[in-house]
């Protein structure tokens, strides 16, 4: 018997991929029925196979499926769901979606529409932070003029005060879209116009503003949970500094190198801002950590983050389950309050790497395709969140994240050791993934020394060279296999290729290669 009654009888999950599967798992644990939705590209996907029931939304393009507010609300009503979980991405931070769910008499599992709307506008969020005394990145608090020759002098004057290099950012922005880096006054008018144009096409809102570029900086964010009484607590922070194109690659918790006192101060700032914004359910407050040790508020994400799992491993909480409980009107649980108490000194360390279908030798360009080989690691301290099985197709229509590999340990060193081991166990074929980059990170002395910054990837990673080193080995291996030398490959230590080192002893791949020949050679 479960201790508590399920928070809902049935909910609809308005998402796909690993996050939909993650939410279904929480539903199973709680005894809540899960309804999934899908596009034609996902008719046989894991989130459809695992759900109690599923509703088709439409063709693969997001605008015709996962972004259709009308179709999703209709699916929720007709399937008898009591609440809707948006996951991340798609409609998760659209106040109009949350509002439509509520208008249909259902519960939106996330912050209230008014809070989503207020914080989704980064300028409003910056003004709010300023009002409650939380330091923000230096820059403007009002929209910058775009294509206004009469105001060019005025905005250049403002930009001088902010300092170069600076960033033009979209008020409705995210994921780096609408963002432009500006190194001189001369470039500013064109950058404002270009950023505004991109923001308009991406978000339907061309409002842009100016912010100083803090570089090198670390990206540190605080996980908040709040209940319907207005109480907001911080349960810990994550360092997400390793990024490319403003998309995170590696995340860890807690952020290395902070004393409990500084952590407490950071958490208090985030909770203060969350309280002032009327946040409830789950949200994340993002900060930049400058080299001088100062924190500056960046933005609030009013949804579950991709990287919520690292905080779960550190705290022992199930954040999705807590979201359901909070959405049902229950107060912050005892487990959440206890985690908030321990948040400044959590005593464990977790690292997550995002395995994406991208080529890390070609600037992380997308590589959709069919996954022909898929073996994920397991063992002590390892968690994998994924929706992929061998033979699945990574569709070109959606985000290219295919798995989140998390490791945890009693300290950061143990977590890195486990990361290295887990990545060595991973076998992925058919599509190029970010695996080589993550293997590099796990072996990097700079990462081990917690030398983290948002410029880390540009500074340390040379994908083309790393790939070229592997290329010669690839050609040799194929030549050996072609000559039937895989017999030798399978018997290291006799006259096999490998000297009997520990790596050679891990001859799994060699045996696996032979098995592949026997079992799957096309007839």
């Amino acid at each position, binding site marked *: 018997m479960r201790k508590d009654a399920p928070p809902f009888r049935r909910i609809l999950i308005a998402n796909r991929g690993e996050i939909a599967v993650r939410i279904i798992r929480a539903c199973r644990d709680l005894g809540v029925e899960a309804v999934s939705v899908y596009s034609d590209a996902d008719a046989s996907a894991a989130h459809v196979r695992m759900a109690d029931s599923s509703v088709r939304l439409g063709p693969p393009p997001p605008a015709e499926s996962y972004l259709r507010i009308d179709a999703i609300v209709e699916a929720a009503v007709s399937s008898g769901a009591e609440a809707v979980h948006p996951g991340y991405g798609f409609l998760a931070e659209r106040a109009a979606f949350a509002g439509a769910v509520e208008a249909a008499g259902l519960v939106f599992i996330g912050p209230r529409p008014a809070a989503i709307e207020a914080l989704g506008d980064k300028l409003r969020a910056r003004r709010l932070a300023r009002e409650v005394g939380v330091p923000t990145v230096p820059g403007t608090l009002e929209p910058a003029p775009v294509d206004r020759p009469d105001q060019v002098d005025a905005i250049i004057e403002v930009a001088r005060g902010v300092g170069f290099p600076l960033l033009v950012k979209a008020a409705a922005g995210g994921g780096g879209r609408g963002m432009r880096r500006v190194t001189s006054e001369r470039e500013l008018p064109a950058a404002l116009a270009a950023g505004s144009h991109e923001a308009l096409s991406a978000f339907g809102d061309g409002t842009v503003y100016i912010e100083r570029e803090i570089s090198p900086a670390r990206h540190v964010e605080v996980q908040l949970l709040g209940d319907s009484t207005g109480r907001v607590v911080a349960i810990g922070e994550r360092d997400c500094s390793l990024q490319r194109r403003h998309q995170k690659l590696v995340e860890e918790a807690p952020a290395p190198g902070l004393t409990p006192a500084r952590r407490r101060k950071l958490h208090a700032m985030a909770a203060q801002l969350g309280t002032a914004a009327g946040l409830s359910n789950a949200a994340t407050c993002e900060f930049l950590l400058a080299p001088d040790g100062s924190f500056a508020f960046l933005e609030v994400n009013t949804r579950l983050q991709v990287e919520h799992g690292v905080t779960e491993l550190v705290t022992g909480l199930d954040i999705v389950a807590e979201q359901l409980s909070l959405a049902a009107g229950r107060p912050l649980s005892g487990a959440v309050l206890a985690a908030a108490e321990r948040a400044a000194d959590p005593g464990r360390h977790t690292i997550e790497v995002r395995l994406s279908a991208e080529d890390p030798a070609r600037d992380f360009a997308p590589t959709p395709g069919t996954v022909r080989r898929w073996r994920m690691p397991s063992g002590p301290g390892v968690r994998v969140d994924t929706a992929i099985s061998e033979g699945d197709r990574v569709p*070109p*229509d959606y985000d290219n994240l295919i798995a989140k590999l998390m490791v945890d340990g009693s300290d950061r060193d143990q977590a890195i050791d486990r990361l290295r081991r887990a990545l060595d166990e991973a076998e992925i074929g058919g599509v190029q993934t970010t695996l080589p980059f993550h293997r590099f990170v796990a072996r990097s002395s700079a990462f081990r020394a917690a030398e983290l910054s948002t410029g880390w990837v540009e500074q340390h990673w040379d994908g083309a060279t790393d790939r070229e080193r592997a*290329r010669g080995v690839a050609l040799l291996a*194929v030549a050996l296999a072609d000559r039937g030398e895989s017999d030798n490959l399978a018997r290291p230590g006799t*006259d096999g290729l490998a000297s009997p080192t520990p790596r*050679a002893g891990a001859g799994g791949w060699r045996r696996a290669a032979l098995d592949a020949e026997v079992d799957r050679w096309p007839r």
Partner: protein
Amino acid sequence: MATVSGEALRVMTADAAGEALVIEPDGQVLPADRQVLLLPSALDRTSGRRRREVVVDGWRFEVDVEPDRRARLREQAARASGHAAQDGRLEIRAVIPGRVVAVAVNPGDRVEAAGQLLVVEAMKMQNEIRAPRAGTVAKVAVGAGQNVELRDLLIVLE
């Protein structure tokens, strides 16, 4: 020490990037500290070459392998047929699955080398497909809005 026995082999990545490796009999050894994953091979019926996928330390390669002797013969034959490839029919195929968002040419259009042909969007990224050489557009096999799979025919140049 394991070596390749029999005759010399030529192996190269299928995208023809980088140089081919000719492996002489009894020549080379594989380092032991690499993670190597060999996937089942498939025979490419048009070329008669065997294509294999191999993943080394997470890097994925498609590799063509054939006896060096035969590769030399093939190259001689290609040279003999002269510059046919320069002004013959050239099929441009999709190198990534995605959606065609724009087509810049019509049949009969003259294009210069590196002239824009079409744009394929995959995973929120727009990939411009340009003409590998000058020529005349003989066929446009796709339209804007259409989904394409890997290696689908896009455009024929003559």
